[in-house]
Protein backbone atom coordinates (compact mmCIF):
# COMPACT_ATOMS: atom_id res chain seq x y z
CA UNK A 1 0.00 0.00 0.00
CA UNK A 2 1.31 3.31 -0.99
CA UNK A 3 1.51 6.68 0.62
CA UNK A 4 -0.02 9.67 -1.12
CA UNK A 5 2.53 12.41 -1.66
CA UNK A 6 1.42 16.03 -1.90
CA UNK A 7 3.46 17.89 -4.48
CA UNK A 8 3.40 21.57 -5.31
CA UNK A 9 3.27 22.56 -8.97
CA UNK A 10 6.17 24.85 -9.79
CA UNK A 11 5.94 24.95 -13.58
CA UNK A 12 3.68 23.54 -16.24
CA UNK A 13 3.68 23.04 -19.97
CA UNK A 14 0.12 23.34 -21.36
CA UNK A 15 1.18 21.82 -24.69
CA UNK A 16 2.32 18.49 -23.22
CA UNK A 17 0.12 18.76 -20.09
CA UNK A 18 3.20 17.88 -18.06
CA UNK A 19 4.11 19.80 -14.91
CA UNK A 20 7.21 20.09 -12.81
CA UNK A 21 6.30 19.53 -9.18
CA UNK A 22 8.23 19.68 -5.95
CA UNK A 23 8.08 16.80 -3.48
CA UNK A 24 10.15 17.58 -0.42
CA UNK A 25 12.30 19.87 -2.58
CA UNK A 26 12.87 17.09 -5.12
CA UNK A 27 11.66 18.03 -8.59
CA UNK A 28 9.56 15.47 -10.42
CA UNK A 29 7.77 15.43 -13.76
CA UNK A 30 4.04 14.88 -13.38
CA UNK A 31 1.35 14.24 -15.99
CA UNK A 32 -1.74 16.42 -15.55
CA UNK A 33 -3.88 14.24 -17.83
CA UNK A 34 -6.17 13.15 -14.99
CA UNK A 35 -6.87 16.52 -13.34
CA UNK A 36 -8.49 19.77 -14.45
CA UNK A 37 -7.64 23.42 -13.79
CA UNK A 38 -4.25 23.00 -12.15
CA UNK A 39 -2.13 26.12 -11.82
CA UNK A 40 1.37 26.92 -10.60
CA UNK A 41 1.33 26.93 -6.78
CA UNK A 42 -1.43 24.32 -6.49
CA UNK A 43 -0.89 21.09 -4.56
CA UNK A 44 -1.69 17.73 -6.12
CA UNK A 45 -1.43 14.14 -4.96
CA UNK A 46 1.09 12.28 -7.08
CA UNK A 47 1.39 8.59 -7.80
CA UNK A 48 3.47 6.83 -10.47
CA UNK A 49 3.98 10.04 -12.39
CA UNK A 50 0.34 11.17 -12.47
CA UNK A 51 -1.36 13.92 -10.51
CA UNK A 52 -4.42 12.10 -9.15
CA UNK A 53 -6.30 15.05 -7.72
CA UNK A 54 -5.89 18.59 -6.52
CA UNK A 55 -5.88 19.15 -2.76
CA UNK A 56 -6.14 22.36 -0.82
CA UNK A 57 -3.02 23.89 0.65
CA UNK A 58 -4.09 23.33 4.24
CA UNK A 59 -4.54 19.58 3.70
CA UNK A 60 -1.25 19.36 1.79
CA UNK A 61 0.70 21.15 4.51
CA UNK A 62 -0.87 18.97 7.22
CA UNK A 63 0.13 15.85 5.30
CA UNK A 64 3.66 17.11 4.70
CA UNK A 65 3.94 17.93 8.42
CA UNK A 66 2.99 14.31 9.22
CA UNK A 67 5.69 13.00 6.89
CA UNK A 68 8.19 15.37 8.49
CA UNK A 69 7.10 14.26 11.99
CA UNK A 70 7.80 10.68 10.93
CA UNK A 71 11.25 11.70 9.69
CA UNK A 72 10.39 10.77 6.13
CA UNK A 73 10.87 14.23 4.66
CA UNK A 74 13.15 17.13 5.40
CA UNK A 75 10.62 19.94 5.46
CA UNK A 76 7.15 20.29 6.96
Amino acid at each position, binding site marked *: *MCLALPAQIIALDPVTNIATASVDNVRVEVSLA*LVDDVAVGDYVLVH*VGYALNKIDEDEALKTLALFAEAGLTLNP
Partner: protein
Amino acid sequence: MTPDGTVHIELYHRAGQASGARIASTRPDIAPLVLLGKTPEQILDIVPLLFTLCGNAQACVALLTCRAALGMTAEPESDAARDLLVQLETLREHAWRILLDWPGLIGLPPDKKALAALLKFDALFKRHLFRHGEAYKLDSCLDIDAVQLTQLTAELEALIDAAIFNGRLADFRTLACETQLCDWLSQNEALPACLLNDLYNRNWTAIGQNEVDCLPELEADALNRQMQQEDLAAFCRAPHWQGRCFETTPLTRQRSHPLIAGLQHHYGNGLMVRFVARLLEVAAIPLRLSRGIEQKPAPAIVSSTGGIGLAQLQAARGLLIHRLELRHGRVYDYRIAAPTEWNFHPEGVVAQGLKHLKAEGPNDLRRQAELLINSVDPCVLYNLKLTDSHA
Protein backbone atom coordinates in the same frame (compact mmCIF):
# COMPACT_ATOMS: atom_id res chain seq x y z
CA MET B 1 14.15 9.53 -3.51
CA THR B 2 10.66 10.17 -2.18
CA PRO B 3 9.34 9.18 1.26
CA ASP B 4 7.04 6.36 0.15
CA GLY B 5 9.92 3.91 -0.34
CA THR B 6 10.59 1.29 -2.99
CA VAL B 7 10.65 -2.48 -3.34
CA HIS B 8 14.06 -3.42 -4.75
CA ILE B 9 14.01 -6.63 -6.75
CA GLU B 10 17.13 -8.33 -8.08
CA LEU B 11 16.53 -11.20 -10.47
CA TYR B 12 19.46 -13.52 -11.13
CA HIS B 13 19.47 -15.39 -14.42
CA ARG B 14 21.53 -17.07 -17.08
CA ALA B 15 20.55 -16.11 -20.63
CA GLY B 16 16.95 -15.46 -19.55
CA GLN B 17 16.59 -18.52 -17.28
CA ALA B 18 15.95 -17.28 -13.75
CA SER B 19 18.02 -18.80 -10.98
CA GLY B 20 17.14 -16.68 -7.96
CA ALA B 21 15.43 -13.53 -6.79
CA ARG B 22 16.16 -11.16 -3.93
CA ILE B 23 13.58 -8.72 -2.63
CA ALA B 24 14.37 -5.91 -0.19
CA SER B 25 12.00 -3.09 0.72
CA THR B 26 12.59 0.47 1.86
CA ARG B 27 8.86 1.10 2.31
CA PRO B 28 8.46 2.91 5.64
CA ASP B 29 6.36 1.59 8.51
CA ILE B 30 4.80 4.99 9.02
CA ALA B 31 1.96 4.23 11.47
CA PRO B 32 3.99 3.89 14.69
CA LEU B 33 6.03 6.95 13.72
CA VAL B 34 3.07 9.24 13.15
CA LEU B 35 0.31 7.93 15.39
CA LEU B 36 2.14 7.46 18.70
CA GLY B 37 0.45 9.47 21.47
CA LYS B 38 -2.55 10.44 19.35
CA THR B 39 -6.20 10.03 20.35
CA PRO B 40 -8.58 7.80 18.33
CA GLU B 41 -10.20 10.93 16.87
CA GLN B 42 -6.79 12.15 15.71
CA ILE B 43 -6.03 8.73 14.18
CA LEU B 44 -9.17 9.03 12.08
CA ASP B 45 -8.11 12.52 10.93
CA ILE B 46 -4.56 11.45 10.06
CA VAL B 47 -4.98 8.07 8.32
CA PRO B 48 -6.95 9.45 5.30
CA LEU B 49 -4.26 12.10 4.79
CA LEU B 50 -1.48 9.51 4.65
CA PHE B 51 -3.15 6.86 2.51
CA THR B 52 -5.17 8.49 -0.23
CA LEU B 53 -4.69 5.69 -2.78
CA CYS B 54 -6.44 3.01 -0.73
CA GLY B 55 -7.87 5.65 1.57
CA ASN B 56 -11.30 4.09 2.05
CA ALA B 57 -9.88 0.72 3.09
CA GLN B 58 -7.29 2.32 5.37
CA ALA B 59 -9.78 4.72 6.97
CA CYS B 60 -12.43 2.02 7.35
CA VAL B 61 -10.12 -0.48 9.03
CA ALA B 62 -8.72 2.32 11.24
CA LEU B 63 -12.26 3.16 12.35
CA LEU B 64 -13.04 -0.51 13.09
CA THR B 65 -9.76 -0.81 15.01
CA CYS B 66 -10.44 2.31 17.08
CA ARG B 67 -13.96 1.18 17.87
CA ALA B 68 -12.64 -2.23 18.96
CA ALA B 69 -9.97 -0.69 21.18
CA LEU B 70 -12.55 1.63 22.74
CA GLY B 71 -14.98 -1.25 23.29
CA MET B 72 -17.65 0.41 21.13
CA THR B 73 -20.46 -1.60 19.56
CA ALA B 74 -20.71 -2.43 15.86
CA GLU B 75 -22.73 -0.24 13.44
CA PRO B 76 -24.06 -2.81 10.94
CA GLU B 77 -25.86 -0.41 8.62
CA SER B 78 -23.10 2.21 8.53
CA ASP B 79 -20.46 -0.50 8.14
CA ALA B 80 -22.41 -1.91 5.19
CA ALA B 81 -22.30 1.56 3.60
CA ARG B 82 -18.56 1.75 4.30
CA ASP B 83 -18.14 -1.66 2.70
CA LEU B 84 -19.70 -0.19 -0.46
CA LEU B 85 -17.07 2.55 -0.44
CA VAL B 86 -14.28 -0.01 -0.04
CA GLN B 87 -15.77 -2.02 -2.93
CA LEU B 88 -15.95 1.13 -5.04
CA GLU B 89 -12.32 1.85 -4.24
CA THR B 90 -11.32 -1.70 -5.18
CA LEU B 91 -13.06 -1.26 -8.52
CA ARG B 92 -11.39 2.13 -9.07
CA GLU B 93 -7.93 0.82 -8.16
CA HIS B 94 -8.29 -2.21 -10.47
CA ALA B 95 -9.87 -0.26 -13.30
CA TRP B 96 -7.56 2.67 -13.38
CA ARG B 97 -4.46 0.48 -13.36
CA ILE B 98 -5.98 -1.64 -16.13
CA LEU B 99 -6.64 1.51 -18.17
CA LEU B 100 -3.22 2.94 -17.35
CA ASP B 101 -0.97 -0.13 -17.57
CA TRP B 102 -2.55 -2.71 -19.87
CA PRO B 103 -2.47 -0.63 -23.06
CA GLY B 104 1.28 -0.22 -22.57
CA LEU B 105 1.70 -3.97 -22.13
CA ILE B 106 0.30 -4.53 -25.61
CA GLY B 107 1.60 -1.39 -27.32
CA LEU B 108 -1.45 0.90 -27.14
CA PRO B 109 -1.87 4.39 -25.59
CA PRO B 110 -3.86 4.64 -22.32
CA ASP B 111 -7.43 5.98 -22.30
CA LYS B 112 -6.87 9.01 -20.07
CA LYS B 113 -10.39 10.38 -20.47
CA ALA B 114 -11.89 7.25 -18.88
CA LEU B 115 -9.19 7.35 -16.19
CA ALA B 116 -10.08 10.91 -15.23
CA ALA B 117 -13.80 10.05 -15.14
CA LEU B 118 -13.15 7.10 -12.82
CA LEU B 119 -11.39 9.18 -10.21
CA LYS B 120 -14.47 11.36 -9.62
CA PHE B 121 -16.87 8.72 -8.29
CA ASP B 122 -15.47 8.33 -4.77
CA ALA B 123 -16.43 11.78 -3.49
CA LEU B 124 -19.88 11.50 -5.09
CA PHE B 125 -20.63 8.15 -3.45
CA LYS B 126 -19.50 9.44 -0.06
CA ARG B 127 -21.68 12.53 -0.41
CA HIS B 128 -24.76 10.39 -1.13
CA LEU B 129 -24.09 7.86 1.66
CA PHE B 130 -22.95 9.91 4.67
CA ARG B 131 -23.79 13.34 6.07
CA HIS B 132 -21.24 15.86 4.75
CA GLY B 133 -19.51 12.93 3.02
CA GLU B 134 -17.82 12.03 6.35
CA ALA B 135 -17.71 8.24 6.37
CA TYR B 136 -14.93 7.36 8.79
CA LYS B 137 -15.42 9.31 12.00
CA LEU B 138 -16.57 7.89 15.33
CA ASP B 139 -19.71 10.04 14.99
CA SER B 140 -20.35 9.66 11.22
CA CYS B 141 -24.04 9.56 10.29
CA LEU B 142 -25.68 7.80 7.38
CA ASP B 143 -27.57 10.12 5.04
CA ILE B 144 -28.49 8.01 2.03
CA ASP B 145 -29.77 9.39 -1.26
CA ALA B 146 -30.83 6.14 -2.93
CA VAL B 147 -31.90 7.76 -6.20
CA GLN B 148 -28.53 9.44 -6.71
CA LEU B 149 -26.67 6.25 -5.74
CA THR B 150 -28.61 4.21 -8.27
CA GLN B 151 -27.82 6.75 -10.98
CA LEU B 152 -24.14 6.90 -10.05
CA THR B 153 -23.85 3.11 -10.07
CA ALA B 154 -25.43 2.97 -13.53
CA GLU B 155 -22.99 5.63 -14.79
CA LEU B 156 -20.06 3.74 -13.29
CA GLU B 157 -21.12 0.46 -14.85
CA ALA B 158 -21.56 2.13 -18.25
CA LEU B 159 -18.07 3.63 -17.98
CA ILE B 160 -16.51 0.28 -17.04
CA ASP B 161 -18.41 -1.54 -19.77
CA ALA B 162 -17.32 0.92 -22.47
CA ALA B 163 -13.74 1.63 -21.37
CA ILE B 164 -12.66 -1.87 -20.30
CA PHE B 165 -15.04 -4.45 -21.75
CA ASN B 166 -15.85 -2.70 -25.06
CA GLY B 167 -19.56 -3.27 -24.44
CA ARG B 168 -19.20 -6.96 -23.58
CA LEU B 169 -19.34 -6.78 -19.77
CA ALA B 170 -22.61 -8.70 -19.54
CA ASP B 171 -21.12 -11.58 -21.54
CA PHE B 172 -17.98 -11.59 -19.41
CA ARG B 173 -20.04 -11.97 -16.24
CA THR B 174 -21.49 -15.26 -17.49
CA LEU B 175 -18.12 -16.98 -18.09
CA ALA B 176 -17.69 -20.16 -16.06
CA CYS B 177 -14.98 -22.15 -17.87
CA GLU B 178 -11.95 -21.69 -20.11
CA THR B 179 -13.83 -22.71 -23.26
CA GLN B 180 -16.32 -19.90 -22.68
CA LEU B 181 -13.44 -17.52 -21.94
CA CYS B 182 -11.77 -18.43 -25.24
CA ASP B 183 -15.07 -17.83 -27.06
CA TRP B 184 -15.31 -14.42 -25.38
CA LEU B 185 -11.73 -13.61 -26.40
CA SER B 186 -12.35 -14.56 -30.02
CA GLN B 187 -12.98 -11.58 -32.34
CA ASN B 188 -12.93 -9.30 -29.30
CA GLU B 189 -11.14 -5.94 -29.35
CA ALA B 190 -11.71 -5.15 -25.65
CA LEU B 191 -8.52 -4.23 -23.80
CA PRO B 192 -8.50 -7.36 -21.58
CA ALA B 193 -9.11 -9.57 -24.60
CA CYS B 194 -6.03 -8.10 -26.29
CA LEU B 195 -3.90 -8.76 -23.20
CA LEU B 196 -5.20 -12.28 -22.54
CA ASN B 197 -4.91 -13.23 -26.22
CA ASP B 198 -1.32 -11.99 -26.12
CA LEU B 199 -0.63 -14.31 -23.14
CA TYR B 200 -2.09 -17.26 -25.09
CA ASN B 201 -0.13 -16.38 -28.22
CA ARG B 202 3.15 -16.19 -26.29
CA ASN B 203 2.33 -19.29 -24.26
CA TRP B 204 2.81 -17.20 -21.12
CA THR B 205 -0.42 -18.21 -19.42
CA ALA B 206 1.30 -20.06 -16.56
CA ILE B 207 4.21 -17.64 -16.16
CA GLY B 208 5.06 -17.03 -12.50
CA GLN B 209 3.36 -20.23 -11.30
CA ASN B 210 4.61 -21.31 -7.87
CA GLU B 211 3.58 -23.15 -4.73
CA VAL B 212 2.83 -20.26 -2.37
CA ASP B 213 -0.75 -20.67 -1.14
CA CYS B 214 -3.48 -18.11 -0.77
CA LEU B 215 -3.88 -16.77 2.76
CA PRO B 216 -6.78 -18.47 4.53
CA GLU B 217 -9.31 -16.41 6.46
CA LEU B 218 -7.59 -15.41 9.70
CA GLU B 219 -9.47 -15.76 12.95
CA ALA B 220 -8.99 -12.37 14.61
CA ASP B 221 -8.23 -13.51 18.15
CA ALA B 222 -5.72 -16.08 16.90
CA LEU B 223 -4.04 -13.43 14.73
CA ASN B 224 -3.92 -11.04 17.69
CA ARG B 225 -2.35 -13.76 19.86
CA GLN B 226 0.28 -14.49 17.20
CA MET B 227 1.09 -10.80 16.80
CA GLN B 228 1.41 -10.34 20.56
CA GLN B 229 4.10 -13.01 20.65
CA GLU B 230 6.13 -11.36 17.89
CA ASP B 231 8.28 -8.35 17.23
CA LEU B 232 5.45 -6.29 15.73
CA ALA B 233 7.76 -4.20 13.55
CA ALA B 234 9.27 -7.39 12.08
CA PHE B 235 5.80 -8.89 11.52
CA CYS B 236 4.60 -5.81 9.64
CA ARG B 237 7.76 -5.75 7.48
CA ALA B 238 7.53 -9.47 6.62
CA PRO B 239 4.19 -10.93 7.71
CA HIS B 240 3.53 -14.66 7.93
CA TRP B 241 0.85 -16.91 9.30
CA GLN B 242 1.97 -19.76 11.54
CA GLY B 243 5.48 -19.55 10.13
CA ARG B 244 4.54 -19.68 6.43
CA CYS B 245 4.39 -17.10 3.64
CA PHE B 246 1.06 -16.60 1.89
CA GLU B 247 -0.26 -14.43 -0.88
CA THR B 248 -3.20 -12.11 -0.40
CA THR B 249 -4.49 -10.70 -3.70
CA PRO B 250 -7.67 -10.65 -5.82
CA LEU B 251 -6.84 -14.28 -6.66
CA THR B 252 -7.23 -15.12 -2.97
CA ARG B 253 -10.77 -13.72 -3.07
CA GLN B 254 -11.75 -15.17 -6.44
CA ARG B 255 -10.26 -18.66 -6.19
CA SER B 256 -13.63 -20.32 -5.62
CA HIS B 257 -15.10 -18.82 -8.83
CA PRO B 258 -15.63 -21.67 -11.31
CA LEU B 259 -13.69 -19.91 -14.07
CA ILE B 260 -10.70 -19.39 -11.77
CA ALA B 261 -10.88 -22.93 -10.39
CA GLY B 262 -10.83 -24.28 -13.95
CA LEU B 263 -7.97 -22.03 -15.06
CA GLN B 264 -5.94 -22.90 -11.95
CA HIS B 265 -6.14 -26.55 -12.91
CA HIS B 266 -4.10 -25.72 -16.04
CA TYR B 267 -2.08 -22.65 -15.08
CA GLY B 268 -1.72 -22.77 -11.28
CA ASN B 269 -1.36 -19.23 -9.96
CA GLY B 270 0.24 -17.95 -13.16
CA LEU B 271 -0.44 -14.78 -15.13
CA MET B 272 -3.69 -15.83 -16.81
CA VAL B 273 -5.36 -16.70 -13.53
CA ARG B 274 -4.25 -13.47 -11.86
CA PHE B 275 -5.41 -11.16 -14.64
CA VAL B 276 -8.76 -12.96 -14.97
CA ALA B 277 -9.30 -12.79 -11.19
CA ARG B 278 -8.86 -9.03 -11.29
CA LEU B 279 -11.27 -8.74 -14.23
CA LEU B 280 -13.86 -10.82 -12.39
CA GLU B 281 -13.77 -8.34 -9.53
CA VAL B 282 -14.09 -5.40 -11.92
CA ALA B 283 -17.10 -7.07 -13.53
CA ALA B 284 -18.78 -8.06 -10.26
CA ILE B 285 -18.43 -4.92 -8.16
CA PRO B 286 -20.94 -2.73 -10.07
CA LEU B 287 -23.54 -5.43 -9.40
CA ARG B 288 -22.72 -5.39 -5.68
CA LEU B 289 -22.95 -1.60 -5.63
CA SER B 290 -26.33 -1.72 -7.38
CA ARG B 291 -27.74 -3.88 -4.58
CA GLY B 292 -26.99 -1.03 -2.15
CA ILE B 293 -26.50 -1.39 1.59
CA GLU B 294 -29.10 -4.13 1.93
CA GLN B 295 -26.20 -6.39 1.10
CA LYS B 296 -24.56 -7.83 4.16
CA PRO B 297 -20.94 -6.67 4.07
CA ALA B 298 -18.06 -9.10 4.05
CA PRO B 299 -17.15 -9.39 7.72
CA ALA B 300 -14.31 -7.16 8.79
CA ILE B 301 -12.98 -9.38 11.51
CA VAL B 302 -12.37 -7.55 14.73
CA SER B 303 -10.69 -8.53 17.97
CA SER B 304 -10.97 -6.46 21.14
CA THR B 305 -9.23 -7.03 24.47
CA GLY B 306 -8.24 -4.55 27.16
CA GLY B 307 -7.51 -1.45 25.07
CA ILE B 308 -6.19 -3.44 22.13
CA GLY B 309 -8.16 -3.39 18.90
CA LEU B 310 -7.39 -5.39 15.79
CA ALA B 311 -9.35 -5.27 12.55
CA GLN B 312 -8.83 -6.65 9.08
CA LEU B 313 -10.58 -6.19 5.77
CA GLN B 314 -10.02 -6.89 2.10
CA ALA B 315 -8.56 -3.87 0.31
CA ALA B 316 -7.97 -3.73 -3.45
CA ARG B 317 -4.56 -5.42 -3.24
CA GLY B 318 -5.38 -7.91 -0.47
CA LEU B 319 -5.80 -8.24 3.27
CA LEU B 320 -5.18 -5.12 5.32
CA ILE B 321 -4.64 -5.44 9.08
CA HIS B 322 -4.54 -2.67 11.67
CA ARG B 323 -3.68 -3.24 15.33
CA LEU B 324 -3.97 -0.51 17.97
CA GLU B 325 -2.95 -0.52 21.59
CA LEU B 326 -4.46 2.34 23.61
CA ARG B 327 -3.24 3.41 27.04
CA HIS B 328 -4.98 6.21 28.90
CA GLY B 329 -6.95 7.04 25.75
CA ARG B 330 -3.90 7.56 23.54
CA VAL B 331 -1.94 5.42 21.09
CA TYR B 332 0.70 3.35 22.81
CA ASP B 333 1.32 1.32 19.65
CA TYR B 334 -0.20 1.28 16.16
CA ARG B 335 0.72 -1.25 13.46
CA ILE B 336 -0.37 -1.76 9.88
CA ALA B 337 0.30 -5.00 7.98
CA ALA B 338 -0.41 -4.23 4.32
CA PRO B 339 -0.86 -6.75 1.49
CA THR B 340 2.30 -5.49 -0.24
CA GLU B 341 4.38 -6.86 2.62
CA TRP B 342 2.72 -10.31 2.40
CA ASN B 343 3.12 -10.50 -1.37
CA PHE B 344 6.62 -8.98 -1.64
CA HIS B 345 7.94 -10.91 1.36
CA PRO B 346 11.54 -12.04 0.59
CA GLU B 347 10.24 -15.63 0.42
CA GLY B 348 6.73 -14.76 -0.78
CA VAL B 349 4.69 -15.26 -3.91
CA VAL B 350 6.48 -12.72 -6.09
CA ALA B 351 9.95 -13.94 -5.10
CA GLN B 352 8.97 -17.58 -5.73
CA GLY B 353 7.25 -16.70 -9.00
CA LEU B 354 10.28 -14.78 -10.26
CA LYS B 355 12.63 -17.67 -9.45
CA HIS B 356 10.70 -19.94 -11.82
CA LEU B 357 10.73 -17.66 -14.88
CA LYS B 358 12.19 -19.12 -18.03
CA ALA B 359 12.52 -16.74 -20.96
CA GLU B 360 14.41 -16.78 -24.25
CA GLY B 361 16.65 -13.91 -23.23
CA PRO B 362 17.04 -11.02 -20.78
CA ASN B 363 14.54 -8.77 -22.59
CA ASP B 364 11.77 -11.36 -22.45
CA LEU B 365 12.72 -12.17 -18.86
CA ARG B 366 12.31 -8.53 -17.86
CA ARG B 367 8.93 -8.36 -19.60
CA GLN B 368 7.79 -11.56 -17.85
CA ALA B 369 8.95 -10.23 -14.49
CA GLU B 370 7.17 -6.90 -15.03
CA LEU B 371 3.96 -8.70 -16.00
CA LEU B 372 4.17 -10.93 -12.92
CA ILE B 373 4.70 -7.97 -10.59
CA ASN B 374 1.87 -6.04 -12.26
CA SER B 375 -0.44 -9.04 -11.99
CA VAL B 376 0.15 -9.30 -8.23
CA ASP B 377 0.22 -5.58 -7.38
CA PRO B 378 0.12 -2.96 -10.14
CA CYS B 379 0.47 -0.14 -7.65
CA VAL B 380 3.72 -0.91 -5.86
CA LEU B 381 6.75 1.27 -6.60
CA TYR B 382 9.62 -1.06 -7.47
CA ASN B 383 13.02 -1.21 -9.00
CA LEU B 384 13.87 -4.34 -11.01
CA LYS B 385 17.48 -5.25 -11.66
CA LEU B 386 18.47 -8.22 -13.80
CA THR B 387 21.84 -9.79 -12.97
CA ASP B 388 23.41 -12.38 -15.22
CA SER B 389 24.77 -14.73 -12.58
CA HIS B 390 27.33 -16.24 -14.96
CA ALA B 391 28.55 -13.05 -16.62
